[in-house]
C-alpha cells in the first residue's frame, strides 16, 4: 500500500469510500497528482458515480493511457484521466490488468470520448474492452498482426 495519511484523507477518497468501501484498492500521491487504484471489476461503476453525482461531475475524460510492464505482473496499467470542470479538479483512476487475456469493461457508456481511446489501446496493446460498440483497430491497418506498443514488440518492427 502506498497510501499515506495525506492521500487517504483527500476528500474525493473519503467520498468514494463512504459510497462504496471497496471502490478504491489503493491511493497514491506523487508530484501533486492523486492516483486512485480501482479494481478491474469496479471501474465502470466508479466512473458512473464520479461522472453523474451532481456535486462531483467528473464528466470530462481527458485520456486513457495504457502502460505495459512486461515481464512484471500485473502486466498492464490503464490510467483514466478524469476532470471535473465545475470543481476544477483532476484525478487519475488506475486499473491493473493481467498479461493473459487482459480485459476490462468499456466506459464508453459513461464517457463517450473513451471510444477512440479504447480502440487505440486495443490496437496497440491488445487489451479487450467488453461492451465497446465498435472495437477494431484504429491506427494500424485492419489486417495487422501483433500489438506494437507492447514491450515484447521490437521498436524497429518485424522484418
Amino acid at each position, binding site marked *: 500500500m502506498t497510501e499515506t495519511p495525506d492521500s487517504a484523507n483527500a476528500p474525493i477518497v473519503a467520498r468514494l469510500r463512504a459510497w462504496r468501501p471497496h471502490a478504491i484498492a489503493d491511493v497514491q500521491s506523487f508530484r501533486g497528482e492523486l492516483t486512485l487504484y480501482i479494481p478491474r471489476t469496479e471501474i465502470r461503476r466508479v466512473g458512473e458515480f464520479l461522472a453523474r453525482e451532481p456535486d462531483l461531475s467528473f464528466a*470530462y475524460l481527458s485520456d486513457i493511457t495504457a*502502460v505495459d510492464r512486461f515481464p512484471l505482473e500485473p502486466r498492464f496499467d490503464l490510467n483514466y484521466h478524469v476532470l471535473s470542470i465545475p470543481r476544477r479538479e483532476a484525478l487519475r483512476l488506475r486499473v491493473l490488468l493481467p498479461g493473459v487475456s487482459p480485459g476490462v469493461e468499456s466506459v464508453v457508456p459513461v464517457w463517450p470520448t473513451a471510444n477512440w481511446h479504447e480502440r487505440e489501446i486495443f490496437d496497440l496493446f491488445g487489451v479487450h474492452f467488453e461492451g465497446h460498440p465498435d472495437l477494431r483497430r484504429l491506427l494500424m491497418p485492419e489486417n495487422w498482426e501483433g500489438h506494437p506498443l507492447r514491450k515484447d514488440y521490437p521498436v524497429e518492427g518485424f522484418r
Partner: protein
Amino acid sequence: MTIVQTATGPTQTMVLNMGPQHPSTHGVLRVVLELDGETVVRADSDIGYLHTGIEKTAEALTYSQAITITDRIDYLAPLSNNLAYCLAVEKLLGIEVPKRAQYIRVLLTELTRIGSHLVWLGTHAIDLGAMSVFLYCFREREELLKLFEMVSGQRMMTSYFRIGGLALEPPVGWMDGIEKIVQAFPARFDEYEDLLTQNRIWQSRTRGVGILSAADAIALGVSGPSLRGSGVDYDVRKYFPYSSYEEFDFQVPVRAEGDCYARYMCRVAEMRESLKIVRQAMGKVPPEGPIRADAPGIVAPQRERMKTEMEALIYHFKIYTEGFAPPPGEVYQRIESPRGELGCYIASDGSPKPYRMKIRAPSFVNLQALPKLIEGRLIADAIACIGTLDIVLGEIDR
C-alpha cells in the same frame, strides 16, 4: 449500404471515400461518407496514415533526445509540444525552471499559437473559397517563422526548450523583431475580419453549420476553441496554470452558438489575446538571467565552466553519455495548445529513458466529434466542419 425512405420511395445510400489524399482533409485523413444524395447519412474516420510510432520511438531515446521528436507531433505548433513534454519531465524530476525561462517560454508559445491559428484560418478560408485570406495569413506567418529561426535556428521544428529551461540564450535584438510583430499584427487581423466576419458568403457557409452542443462536446472530450465555441470555458491556462500563466492578464473567448462561425470568432479573438500576452511577456522578461534550472545532474553546466572546472566536466560527460534518471513514478501534464488540451503522460521506471510517453492529442479526441457535426448535413458542410475542428494528423496518428 442502407435503404433510406424518401418522399418518392426507398433508395439506396452511396458510400463515398474522402481522402486520404484530399486538399481539404488537412492531412492524410480518410473519411468514409455514406450519402443519401448530397446528404451525409454516416461518416466514419479512418486514421493511421501518418502513424510513425513516435511513442514507441521515445522509449528508445533518452529524455533529452526525445525533445526532438516531440516537435513533429503537432507540427503546426512545435513549441507547444516541446513545452508539454519538458514540463512533464520537469514535474517528474521536481525541478524548478527560472522565471526568465518561463516568461520566454510563454512568449514563444503564444507566438506559436498565433502561427497555428494563421494556418488554420488560411486553410479553412481557402477550403470555403476565400482564397486571398490564405495568402495574407501566410504572409504574417512568415514573420513568425523568421523570428523562430532567429531565436532557435529553425523555422518550424525548433526543439528550443530543454529539460530545465531553454536551449540557447535568445540573440541580441530579438525583442525588436517581436516589437514589429506586436505593432503590425492587430491591423492585419482587422484585415482578415474585414474579409470574412461580415461577409455574407462566409456567414452562410459557417453560421448554423456543424453545431456541437456543450453537453456533446464535454461527453466527446472536445477541448480548445472547438469546446469554447460551444459555451464551455475550459482553458488549461486558466484552470491549471503552468509556466507562470497565472501572472498574465488575458481573456479566454467563449461563444454559445457552437457552430463553425462561433469557433471562427473564438480563434480570431484568441489571436488578439495572444498578442496581449506576448506584449506583457516582453515587459516581464528580465534582460539578463539564467535560462536553465540549477540542477547539476540534469542540466549541463555552462560551457566556459565545463572547459575549466573538473566537476563541471564530469557532470557534462555523465549527462551526455548516461543521461539523467528521474525517480520511478508517473505524471500527466496538460497544456493548452492551439487545438485544445495537449497532455503528456510520462511513466518512469528510474532509467534514463522514458518507460512510456503518451501524448494526449487534442485533434485525436476532437476528430471523434466529426460525425456529430456532419451527419444529416451536406458534403460541402463536411468540408467546413473538418476545417473548423482544426485537426493536425501528426498528433492524431503520432
